[in-house]
């Protein structure tokens, strides 16, 4: 097996910008300590078709239909028990973003049952369809329609079966409360009857038709309304088992020996002291060294004994205080501004550089996995990941077994934010379990999470734009080094535009993060717009409006500005407070924010954020507000304080005491305005609300202090 260090190397030096589908949103499922047989018993009898293990779930055929688009039988999407119990299957996960409620609503709506009649089984790769990873805000636009289609198809089968039984015309049959009723109201045929009727039940094996009719918005009973998280009671009583809570009979606790620096290579190690400890198993497989012990205290003691004897060789690694220089000098093919002519003819040209530090997701639950090898050689892993099927592949590759011999189960887990796309902890746990011959739980420490998980990529953004005598944009040149091209296109009208994303030699392993590069690109663009407005002698709102077509972005900008009273508050400056505005778009949704801040002794306090947000038709307003608020508040961290620092190949602030994330005391007044657009398809909302926080605050700092801060986190001192 590959050492974690070597495995990390591969992912770590992704020097090219990340493609769009590396993006993600958070989610998780539960259902852990039941074996499949037990599970089937729990479902009760009825047709069950597991589509995920069939050949057609291989990645190639899935391509292009991620998110739940692959053609599957109705019974691959849901199971109807003869007792009428309905279990809906999805490959999506729940990690706080609200997919469990939303997908439950989607199913209930089309089946015409109350949401509490539905059990949503999420992300058990042996049972559910591969709906793609929980990433890129794809659950709402892709998986909600897929679940609706599967459930609508089941509803149509119910009508057909009832019509056949009664020998009547399906047209007059009405479905409500999980039962078909004949046109004269005298007869009823429930989902349980369908499951019990052998011939009718077989029809559940039919493929979900492409043209199945979905319920139209005016008839919605469940979608479009608030629904609380269905397993909320388990959360507040502490009974929900997160991945780190899973326990298996005979289970041991793992601990992995970590190199003292990213570049360290193991030269020698003496395993004897750890091996001599009672109950301890030591695993060494190349550079991978780990232990398993009956409890985590002992596992740590054994790990400490290993660390004591380990000798490492390290080589140089760049430090965070030279990061921007490093990225600029190692950038691949940094382009020149192609608009020399426009720049020469311009009244004014503004040319600035913006930088974005490395930050981390730091989900509340660090990576955790419980791995168990069955007597038949089958590997089962319970873990918190946004990519259950990708982690299954990762495990199959690591242990050279077929994907069918690996089962990944993802209980609803403690936060993802784009940070849990990978399965390294699952692989480590499985490697230790293989050596120990017993199930093993491995839960990373906070320090491991801060060091060995991946980071939101740092960026250097170089931008240059020019204005004519009328204050109109004539050219726009914008280059993102290292972080990627998401959200790099400017929505503003401008004669000539040139945007490019280029890679660099990235010193840290990077990967997805809520909105990924969009945050940095939006920060730079929206700060630059303010700088240009100043150069043009207009106010930031008027300058933006002068360069925006009518449409969804303009609508949210106007809404936020009006609700906040921006024009007035900007012009009639209050003493010692500043206001700023910004807008942007990502993944099909549109956002604008106004912020009010105050400054004392070089520290920035955010007092108020007013945000307008539009993501098409709203599916669950209560959850949407929670996502918007959470994104804004999470976004405050990298604006005000968060920055991963490193030196000599070590993270120097791998702890919450040194890496300060937002707390209660940071919460400003939040004032959220959602624009519902029933005429537009629903898109995901877990990411986009974050992107305008930084520039709105940066612009507010300039407004009150006259100082333009171009490096995130923003620092006055």
């Amino acid at each position, binding site marked *: 097996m590959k050492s974690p260090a070597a495995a990390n190397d591969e992912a770590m030096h992704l020097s090219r910008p990340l493609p769009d589908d590396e993006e993600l949103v958070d989610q998780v499922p539960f259902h852990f300590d039941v074996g499949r047989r037990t599970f089937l018993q729990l479902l009760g009898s009825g047709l069950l078709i597991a589509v995920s293990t069939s050949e057609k779930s291989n990645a190639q055929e899935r391509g292009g239909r991620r998110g739940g688009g692959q053609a599957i039988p109705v019974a691959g999407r849901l199971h109807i028990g003869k007792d009428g119990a309905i279990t809906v299957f999805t490959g999506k996960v729940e990690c706080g973003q609200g997919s469990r409620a939303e997908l439950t609503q989607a199913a209930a709506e089309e089946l015409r049952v109350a949401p509490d009649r539905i059990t949503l089984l999420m992300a058990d790769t042996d049972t559910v369809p591969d709906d793609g990873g929980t990433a890129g805000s794809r659950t709402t636009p892709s998986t909600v329609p897929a679940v609706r289609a599967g459930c609508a198809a089941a509803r149509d089968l119910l009508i057909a079966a009832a019509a056949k039984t009664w020998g009547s015309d399906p047209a007059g049959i009405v479905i409500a409360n999980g039962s078909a009723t004949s046109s004269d109201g005298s007869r009823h045929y429930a989902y349980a009857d369908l499951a019990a009727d052998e011939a009718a039940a077989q029809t559940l094996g039919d493929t979900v038709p492409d043209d199945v009719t979905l319920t139209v918005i005016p008839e919605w009973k469940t979608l479009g309304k608030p629904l609380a998280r269905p397993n909320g009671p388990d959360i507040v*009583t*502490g009974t929900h088992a997160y991945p780190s809570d899973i*326990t298996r009979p005979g289970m041991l606790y793992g601990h992995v020996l970590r190199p003292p620096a990213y570049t360290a290579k193991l030269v020698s190690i003496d395993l004897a002291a750890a091996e001599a400890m009672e109950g301890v198993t030591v695993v060494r497989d190349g550079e991978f060294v780990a232990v398993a012990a009956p409890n985590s205290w002992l596992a740590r003691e054994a790990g400490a004994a290993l660390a004591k004897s380990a000798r490492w060789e390290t080589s140089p690694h760049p430090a965070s205080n030279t990061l921007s220089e490093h990225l600029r000098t190692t950038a691949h093919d940094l382009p020149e501004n192609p608009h020399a002519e426009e720049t020469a003819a311009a009244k004014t040209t503004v040319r600035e550089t913006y930088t974005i530090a490395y930050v981390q997701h730091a989900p509340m*639950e660090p990576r955790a996995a419980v791995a168990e090898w069955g007597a038949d050689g089958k590997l089962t892993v319970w873990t918190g990941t946004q990519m259950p099927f990708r982690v299954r592949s990762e495990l199959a590759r690591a242990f050279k077994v077929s994907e069918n011999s690996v089962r990944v189960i993802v209980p609803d887990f403690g936060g993802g934010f784009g940070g849990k796309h990978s399965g390294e902890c699952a692989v480590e746990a499985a490697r230790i379990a293989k050596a120990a011959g017993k199930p093993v739980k491995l839960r990373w420490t906070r320090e491991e999470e801060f060091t060995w998980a991946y980071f939101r990529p740092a960026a250097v953004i170089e931008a240059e734009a020019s204005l004519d005598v009328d204050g109109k944009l004539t050219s726009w040149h914008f280059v993102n080094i290292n972080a990627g091209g998401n959200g790099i296109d400017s929505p503003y009208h401008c004669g000539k535009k040139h945007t490019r994303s280029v890679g660099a030699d990235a010193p840290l392993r990077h990967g997805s993060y809520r909105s990924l590069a969009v945050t940095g690109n939006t920060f730079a663009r929206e700060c630059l717009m303010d700088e240009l407005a100043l150069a043009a002698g207009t106010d930031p709102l008027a300058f933006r409006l002068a360069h925006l077509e009518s449409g969804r972005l303009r609508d949210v900008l106007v809404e936020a500005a009006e609700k906040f009273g921006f024009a007035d508050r900007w012009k009639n400056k209050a003493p010692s407070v500043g206001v700023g505005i910004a807008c942007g778009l990502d993944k099909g949704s549109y956002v604008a924010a106004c912020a009010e801040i105050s400054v004392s002794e070089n520290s920035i306090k955010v007092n108020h954020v007013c945000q307008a947000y539009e993501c098409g038709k709203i599916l669950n307003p209560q959850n949407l507000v929670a996502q918007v608020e959470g994104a804004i508040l999470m976004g405050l961290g990298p604006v005000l304080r968060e920055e991963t620092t490193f030196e000599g190949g070590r993270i120097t602030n791998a702890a*919450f005491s040194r890496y300060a994330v937002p707390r209660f005391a940071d919460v400003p007044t939040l004032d959220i305005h959602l624009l519902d657009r029933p005429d537009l398809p629903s898109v995901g909302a877990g990411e986009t609300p974050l992107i305008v926080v930084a520039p709105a605050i940066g612009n507010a700092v300039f407004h009150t202090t006259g100082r333009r801060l171009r490096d995130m986190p923003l620092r006055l001192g």
Partner: protein
Amino acid sequence: MSTPITIQFTVNGKPREVLSPPERPLLEVLREDLALTGSKYGCGEMQCGACSVLVDGRRQFSCRMPMSSAAGKAVRTIEGLAKQNAGDQGGTESLHPVQQAFLDEAGFQCGYCTCGMIMTAVELLEKTPAPDDAQISAAMNRNLCRCCAYPNIIAAVRKAATIAEESRKSSREIE
């Protein structure tokens, strides 16, 4: 390696005896020896509050509380909050007002911080039955929520205070 010793304490009213090295954190004993996994690990350095439990009525970060300090003490965890209703074999539970309020106000997203938040709020409301928002935020500030569900958490604590006040009133009326 230190030698395990026998330590007695109570957890949620039940006497418990464990054999453990005295330095081992209470959190690990609760989770690994007593199968009480409601209290979570978030940082191991008293920075996040996910491991919060009440020890003799006071909130403690169990990740850094050595077992030796828990000896002879009464520990209360999230598992001990809900009341098992009398005469009910099936075990219907009445949620503690703070649990009920977190449920009503959706005071969580992923929920990983929730048990720690609830335990901290229980301590706060026992000392300050009607806190204002500033008091709530100050008392809860050592608990982290990475989902940043802070506004709903504050609303939940406020609501819990109201529920508790109402039930005090109604029990006074009954008397």
